[in-house]
């Protein structure tokens, strides 16, 4: 098996997606998606549940055929050269895909052999990966006894068996506790440092902010913005006024009181009102004065740099984690 043995060839390890459409019945899960990741970088695909992130990963990893559009990964066409492409990609998912009845070592050995490695080579590679992911002690135990974080590490290790130049990570930290999440981030950063190109989907804004070189914001099957984290923040405009109310019910009164100084309609949630202001200087003093005149009780007022949360809100008109309806694409 050439690809398992040969070192990754970074010059071709890029992702290029043009105008990809995928329907599930009447649902347009992907509605003309364009994506691009340069070799050795991380592209973050950011969006809420049901936005089409998983479908995008599935068409790029040859699990689904797109209805229209072009997909090129590692220099190979994902439809016409699907079989060759499978030799060059790794996929780790949200639902850690390990066989719970096999040990960690057996899982990795099985994957290695399915990549075409001889049994001894697959075993050696499994031991190497168990060591790298701190699973050597657990390697002889069935995966069903693993913690969530261990299982996710094993899943990621399985995706790396053939040293793929391109790695797809579908919500790699969903469901992990904060410590395991941080460990996973560090692992992913290590892979990128070694030259792997990563496409990562996430619904966590801080995750995209930390890991991704470029971020594509996806909503309802469309990329609605893309750029670096800073570029996206710039699109939202400068700093915003954040007002913590004593009484959340007064949020609408805030809108009325501050209308003259607001650059756009304010957004309020859980007793916190955010709005971008026309002029930064004197904004806090003016806001406090206006709110006082209107009889609105305030706990805290401040100017904040926009977060990716704000980016999402500005771009889509809804908060990133507000939509709780289940992934359309995953329950046809």
């Amino acid at each position, binding site marked *: 098996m050439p690809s398992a043995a040969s070192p990754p060839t970074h010059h071709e390890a890029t992702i290029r997606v043009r105008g990809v459409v995928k329907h599930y019945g009447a649902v347009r899960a992907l509605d003309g998606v364009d994506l691009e990741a340069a070799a050795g970088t991380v592209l973050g695909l950011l969006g809420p549940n049901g936005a089409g992130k998983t479908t995008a990963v*599935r068409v790029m*990893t*040859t*699990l*689904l055929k797109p209805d229209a559009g072009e997909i090129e990964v590692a220099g190979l066409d994902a439809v016409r050269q699907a*079989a*060759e492409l*499978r*030799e060059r*990609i790794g*996929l780790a*998912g*949200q*639902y*850690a*895909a*390990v*066989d*719970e*009845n*096999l040990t960690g070592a*057996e899982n990795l050995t*099985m*994957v290695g*052999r*399915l*990549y*075409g490695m001889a049994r001894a080579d697959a075993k050696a590679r499994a031991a190497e990966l168990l060591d790298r992911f701190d699973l050597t002690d657990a390697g002889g135990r*069935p995966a069903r006894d693993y913690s969530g974080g261990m299982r996710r590490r094993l899943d990621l290790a*399985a995706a790396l068996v053939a040293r793929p130049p391109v790695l797809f990570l579908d919500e790699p930290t969903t469901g992990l506790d904060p410590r395991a999440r941080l460990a996973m981030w560090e692992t992913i950063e290590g892979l990128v440092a070694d030259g792997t190109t990563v496409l990562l989907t996430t619904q966590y804004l801080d995750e995209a902010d930390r890991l991704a070189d470029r971020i594509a914001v996806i909503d309802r099957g469309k990329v609605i913005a893309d750029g670096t984290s800073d570029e996206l923040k710039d699109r939202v405009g400068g700093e915003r006024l954040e007002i913590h109310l004593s009484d959340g019910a007064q949020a609408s009164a805030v809108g009325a009181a501050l209308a003259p100084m607001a650059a756009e309609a304010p957004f309020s949630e859980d007793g916190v009102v955010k709005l971008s202001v026309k002029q930064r200087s004197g904004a806090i003093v003016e806001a406090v004065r206006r709110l006082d005149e209107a009889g609105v009780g305030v706990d805290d007022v401040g100017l904040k740099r926009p977060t990716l949360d704000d980016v999402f809100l500005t771009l889509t008109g809804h908060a990133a984690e507000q939509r709780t309806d289940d*992934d359309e694409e*995953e*329950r046809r």
Partner: protein
Amino acid sequence: MRRLVTDTLVIAERNLVRLPRSPDLLLAFTVQPVMFVLLFVYVFGGAISTPGYSYVDFLIPGIIVQNIAFGGFVTALGLNEDLHKGLIDRFRSLPMARPAVLAGRTLADVVTNTLSVCVLLVTGLIIGFNFHASVGEILAGFGILLLFGYAFSWVFALLGLLVSSPESANSLGFIAVFPLTFISSAFVPVQSMPAPLEWFADNLNPFTIVVDAMRALWLGAPAGNSIWGAVVWSLAILAVFAPLAVARYRKTAALR
């Protein structure tokens, strides 16, 4: 082609390695069929008249055929679980031979089926079953059993890929296969059934043909066309369901 063989063996090994670690599965292969043999022989045996044979002799080929048809349940449940756990996504993203996941599963079934046939035979021999056959005929009987069980594993493979949960695989499979095995010559002579059932059992039900073939090979009963019939039925089931299951696998996606 070489890839298909090695990938199939890797998957079959994966499914067999888990066996000793799943006591519930082992019970399903061993204790449960033995229990049914004992219940049938000692509870119903006295009430069922099987001219020309003792009930143990009559029953053993029948109950082994029923049992082997259900052997594929492991495939249906296992594949459905793989779909839910995302393992099918992983396999489909690997450069492995496409049919290997199914071929490996069904091949592992052949091993477990052999195990449960042996357990049932030993039980039968202990409680009085006698072969009236040459070694060749006994082995031919084994061959037909395993072929028929293998064909049924592909039916269950398709079922496991189609249904939404292991529970529905279980109940659908049970509803489809259980009556077929009972409205056949497996447990009672078909002449004792009401006319429409007798007609169905005699003319349409592959279980009757396979059970009759087993009695011909192991007990020296008149064979008629049953031996060739059993082989043709098995190959026909295989020819229909294996391509359907593989086609379904190619298009399938994870259930969540």
